């Protein structure tokens, strides 16, 4: 284990200056002479470290500053203030040695050339990243195998479906086996099967290469499957940084009890908030502290066929975290 972090951020901030203008002709004319400028703090003093090989979920509502942070980390944006180092490099200098060790996968970032087969774009990246021929062949085989790309590589990219194209985009971004991988919504717009495949692929990539991965996603299934640690930001400020399980524990005041009964005749309101009851299968929401007691009573009072206690869905937990005001 290396002791120095792969990513180190201290008090990182990014402020954008935007010109503001009210609607209407008068405002339009006034803005010709005098423009009102306004500062927007997209990222406002965040700090965290990522150890080499860590896979961390980067969460926050739209506009929280996630993409801005990823762009600063990959070297596209110059920070307004604060310290930042990725693999010991200052990202915004975009040194070649740095760029060869990282990748940024974004929905709107297309590396593949639209009109030619993906395999040709792969070859171009091989040359640009100076990947030795033997390594290149091995990596392509491995990626093609893990992502099932074989039948896709020979087709012009414009003829691929969204999911197929995303798989090829991820593959072309990883050909040079980057040590640090930034992923911005890698599974957005994909069906469940494809999401699952990309998830297991990322886990495998991390395992094989020991790469550090920072990913944003609106699909909590992605985060649950890949990340033990999550970092939550809101309005540019850090809300939470720690284990996902601890986040769930501290932010879910409720548990869900699902009981299978013979029918829905019994009045369950005495036990907790009834979320639903269909074909004798009832879902109850109870305060966490009450869970054990309620479960006991249910089993004693009613002809229970089956009973499970579950944490609320992660979406619900995250919503509660977002509802907190940044400190």
């Amino acid at each position, binding site marked *: 284990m290396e002791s120095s972090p792969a990513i180190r951020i201290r008090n990182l901030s990014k402020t954008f*200056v935007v010109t503001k203008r009210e609607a209407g002709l008068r405002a339009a004319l006034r803005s010709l002479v005098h423009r009102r400028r306004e500062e927007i703090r997209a990222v406002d003093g965040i700090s965290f470290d990522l150890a080499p090989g860590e896979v961390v979920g980067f969460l926050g509502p739209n506009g929280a500053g996630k993409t801005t942070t990823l762009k600063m980390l990959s070297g596209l944006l*110059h920070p307004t203030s604060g310290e930042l180092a990725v693999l010991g490099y200052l990202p915004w200098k975009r040194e070649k*040695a740095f760029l060869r060790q990282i990748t940024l996968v974004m929905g*709107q970032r297309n590396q593949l050339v639209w009109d030619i087969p993906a395999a040709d774009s792969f070859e171009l990246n091989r*040359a640009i990243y100076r990947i030795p021929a033997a390594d290149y062949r091995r990596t392509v085989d491995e990626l093609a195998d893990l992502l099932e790309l074989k039948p896709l590589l020979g087709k012009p990219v414009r003829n691929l479906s969204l999911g197929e194209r995303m798989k090829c985009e991820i593959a072309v971004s990883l050909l040079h086996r980057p040590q640090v991988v930034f992923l911005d919504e890698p599974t957005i717009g994909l069906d469940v099967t494809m999401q699952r495949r990309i998830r297991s692929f990322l886990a495998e990539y991390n395992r094989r290469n020991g790469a550090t991965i920072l990913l944003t996603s609106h699909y909590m299934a992605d985060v649950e499957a890949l990340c033990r640690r999550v970092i939550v930001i809101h309005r540019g400020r850090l809300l939470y940084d720690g284990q996902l399980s601890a986040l769930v524990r501290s932010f879910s005041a409720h548990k869900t009890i699902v009981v299978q009964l013979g029918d829905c005749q019994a009045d369950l309101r005495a036990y907790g908030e009834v979320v639903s009851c269909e074909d004798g299968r009832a879902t109850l929401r109870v305060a966490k502290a009450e869970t054990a007691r309620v479960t006991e009573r249910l089993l004693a009072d009613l002809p229970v066929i089956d009973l499970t206690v579950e944490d609320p869905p992660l979406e619900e937990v995250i919503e509660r975290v977002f509802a907190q005001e940044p400190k």
Partner: protein
Amino acid sequence: MKELRDIYVQQFKTSFASMLQYRAALVIWLIGHILEPLISLVVWSAVSRSSGGSVGGFSAADFAAYFLVLMLVNHATYTWVMFTYEYQVRQGTLSSVLLRPLHPIHSDIADNVSSKLITLPGVLFVAAILMVVFRPAFHFVPWAMAAFLPALFLAFIVRFLVEWTLALAAFWTTRVSAVNQVYFVAALFLSGQIAPLSLLPFPVRLASAILPFRWTVAFPVELFLGRLTPVQALTGMAAQSAWLILSLVLLRFVWRAGVKVYSAVGA
């Protein structure tokens, strides 16, 4: 060096393959490219015939030779980088380019050279037809012929670097098409595309000699046609070299400043 060659080989392959996907667009572009000198040729031949066979030392056959060579030189030196940068900055695709461990100018050079090679047979075919129809008069001067290729090469490099630098205006304004428009109108007059520069008034000639326009188009044309003295040829190549150095310096400076702006306001 070997790596850079590998990059160019791959870049040529991709550019070629992409461009061959748009054969119709290439043909339309080619027609436009040929029409412009053709119109000038027809107009000036008519003017020359109606004013007793010669205008400012150009006979109808001289005009034919001038615009024919102009078409070929223009084909060898023109670029369209000014349009691609506006698009790339607006669409945000420039971010991909910036994250590659390679200066983006390389792929632009490869793209431009491939398109020239692909359309070259078409241009040569048209040139052959124009030869038959307009019967141009060539006065070949051996030393000038020898100097032509280096002059043409310098013209291409300078025009590419200047237009690439101008394309970077996209970093500062979203209205690059206005900048392009001004540049193209100026180029039309000052680079000898509307008429041979020697027929234009002195202020225009002066402007074209101070700015890079004359050196990127008209100079190689005049050299090929044997209309320059050895001293004029050497002066021209010195001017080209000076512009080469100046445009390289400008490019580096503007590129750095532009990327700084880009990474400050939102990539």
